[in-house]
């Protein structure tokens, strides 16, 4: 089998800045004194804490119970004593019920952490239960529970699983490091997901600015696995689910529908690795890989971090700030969320902590639209961002809807490219929210 090449239409070429962390080894950050684990680590209903102040917990022990179908359990990432169960600041900007554990540095594993066997001996349902009980969610940023993704309604005809390894967000090198260091685990996780869905076709799509990762993954797949490696043109937003599906399968997800309507399930590199660890080691999702980088960081690193570790702890592990940070972003620069405090825990959605100095954090003043049409040519969905934005600012949301505002994937390419520095995607987001709100009211 050969490596195939492909891409999508539209998109932009932002400065990638991956060289800050790309060639440094993946490190494991020293265990923190305290972890703060919010009971909301996924999209969907928050968990119910099942421990109380004073309880002794072991690493991997259940501390939050899933609450409904679109919810997954949460586990302790260290061993030690529960110091508090109280609301704490979450990266979403709100205070969320959290379990605070003081680390005893013993790393004593909970007795449940044992291998669940090998793929051949497990049924699809058993694998799905392992994934659910390990608290696995999509680690690309959306944190959608993986077991839900792997439970398509019977009328959906799924025929392939794609591993999203594009990592098109500038600065971030988490997937890149995982693929170079653990290619075999990722392939194992992919095969597990293929088995759950009963499909025999798998794809791994990687942007071509990661040649070592492409090579490592190519070596890790066996001819009989029926897994193809796609080398994707380096272009943002190549890792947007819909654009990835178009590049790899040539299919389009119908407007308003989900990838499963195109017969595809897409999962992230880190998620596949977590699936592998959950099956073979019995290890729940209590760690993830985070890139801590940016112009205000002394020594940018990509590191393995326990869920609940304070962002401050990571910044210190990178030698602290080299200059005063003007902006701290949870995620990458294109879709990440700016934080007002660094006193927040790493959650399952934290792919990067980007700290920008004053120059990089500069927010330009928007000026009048010159109708250059650059937003139109870069939009991966082929929308007309200039008009949706204009109608949104005039609060004419019906008009926004007729210009297909709801199909916007919020990649931000339009705002990036705009020479007049207009905040196009922000106003489109407002329009989407208003359209959805008014359609709910109507029902």
């Amino acid at each position, binding site marked *: 089998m050969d490596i195939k090449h492909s891409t999508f239409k539209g998109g932009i070429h932002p400065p990638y800045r991956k060289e800050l962390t790309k060639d440094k080894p993946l490190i494991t950050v020293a265990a923190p004194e305290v972890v703060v684990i919010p009971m909301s680590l996924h999209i969907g209903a928050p968990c119910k804490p099942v421990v109380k102040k004073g309880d002794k917990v072991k690493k991997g022990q259940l501390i939050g119970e899933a609450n409904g179908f679109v919810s997954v359990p949460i586990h302790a990432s260290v061993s030690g004593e529960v110091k508090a169960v109280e609301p704490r600041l979450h990266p979403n900007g709100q205070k969320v019920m959290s379990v605070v554990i003081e680390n005893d540095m013993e790393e004593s594993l909970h007795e449940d952490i044992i291998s669940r066997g090998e793929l051949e001996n497990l049924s699809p349902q058993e694998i799905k239960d392992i994934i659910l009980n390990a608290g696995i969610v999509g680690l690309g940023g959306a944190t959608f529970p993986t077991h839900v993704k792997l439970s398509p309604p019977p009328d959906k005809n799924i025929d392939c699983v794609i591993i999203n390894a594009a990592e098109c967000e500038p600065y971030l090198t988490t997937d890149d490091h995982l693929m170079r260091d653990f290619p075999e685990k990722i392939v194992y996780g992919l095969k597990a997901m293929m088995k759950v869905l009963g499909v025999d076709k798998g794809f791994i799509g990687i942007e071509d600015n990661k040649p070592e990762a492409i090579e490592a993954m190519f070596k890790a797949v066996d001819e009989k696995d029926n897994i193809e490696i796609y080398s994707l043109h380096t272009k943002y937003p190549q890792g947007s689910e*819909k654009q990835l599906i178009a590049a790899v399968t040539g299919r389009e997800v119908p407007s308003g529908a989900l990838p499963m309507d195109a017969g595809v399930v897409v999962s992230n590199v880190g998620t596949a690795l977590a699936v592998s660890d959950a099956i073979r080691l019995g290890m729940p999702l209590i760690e993830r890989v985070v890139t801590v980088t940016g112009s205000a960081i002394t020594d940018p690193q990509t590191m393995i971090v326990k869920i609940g570790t304070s962002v401050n702890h990571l910044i210190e592990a990178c030698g602290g700030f080299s200059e005063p940070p003007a902006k701290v972003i949870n995620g990458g620069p294109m879709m990440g969320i700016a934080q007002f405090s*660094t006193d927040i825990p790493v959650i399952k959605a934290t792919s990067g902590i980007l700290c920008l100095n004053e120059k990089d954090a500069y927010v330009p003043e928007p000026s009048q639209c010159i109708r250059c049409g650059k937003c139109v040519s870069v939009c991966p969905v082929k929308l007309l961002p200039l008009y949706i934005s204009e109608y949104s600012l005039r609060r004419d949301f019906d008009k926004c809807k007729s210009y297909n505002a709801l199909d916007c994937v919020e990649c931000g390419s339009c705002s990036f490219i*705009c020479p007049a520095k207009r905040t196009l995607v922000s106003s489109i987001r407002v329009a989407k929210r208003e359209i959805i709100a008014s359609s709910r009211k109507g029902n």
Partner: protein
Amino acid sequence: MNNEFLTVSSSPHIRASHSTATVMRDVVIALMPAFVAGIIFLGINSALITLLCVVTSVVTEALMQKYVMKRTVTINDWSAVVTGILLAFNLPISAPWWMAVIGSVFAIAIVKQCFGGIGQNFINPALAARAFLLASWPTRMTSSAFLTDSYTAATPLALLKEGGEAATALPSYMDLFMGNIAGSIGEISAFALLIGGVYLIVRQVISWRIPVVFIGTVMVITFIAGQDPLYHLMAGGLMLGAFFMATDYSSSPVTVKGQIIYALGCGIITSVIRLWGGYPEGVSYSILLMNVATPLIERFSMPRIYGEVKGDA
């Protein structure tokens, strides 16, 4: 740790390095070869007219924004400079100074600022001003005014139109290409305009679609009509119009299909005027006509969005 000074803003957190000013400055740079060609073939007076138009345009923009529209003055975005140069390029070398001034004021004050400034004008300001001057002082704007070295020369397209004996006086291809012909200040050198046009495409200021389809359409139609398409390409205002005027952001469609329809329309109207109309030249009117059709073209050329389901438009 002091977190009091963290900026919180909506994503994306990085922006492309270009701006309205750098884009407009690129257009000015792209117009420079034609400016130099104008000085070489028509004399230093072409530079003076251009300078006068630029200064008047910029001053008008500043005064309008400050005192009439009561908005922020944005003359440092270079757009008034572009309008001034383009208007000058559409004037004959013999144009009196007051015509340059009146045209510039009209272009900026009426066509651009009254409709909301940059990005809002529904027709090309420089071309609208040209049409205004042509209607007001026809003799000063038409072929009798194309003076070179103190003798009056007809433009190549006028000669072509007249036909018969006049056609024997047609300049050579080489003169046409380099710009050693009669014509408006900025339109004479096809070579210089080509350099500028290629620069704009390479710098991604404009796409190739409008100029290539516009020029292609004119060449095909004139060829079918039995005339020399190369002549129609290099004589008159086709190169200037196709690369620099029809591509005006404000007054041309933003959709891909729309740009092709628009350029096709420009090409057809130009050819019809040149072949069968009363004027020897039709580029400026064709662009103005397609400018006003732009909103309509856009409405009927909406791109098919990703994942669009049939019948769900």
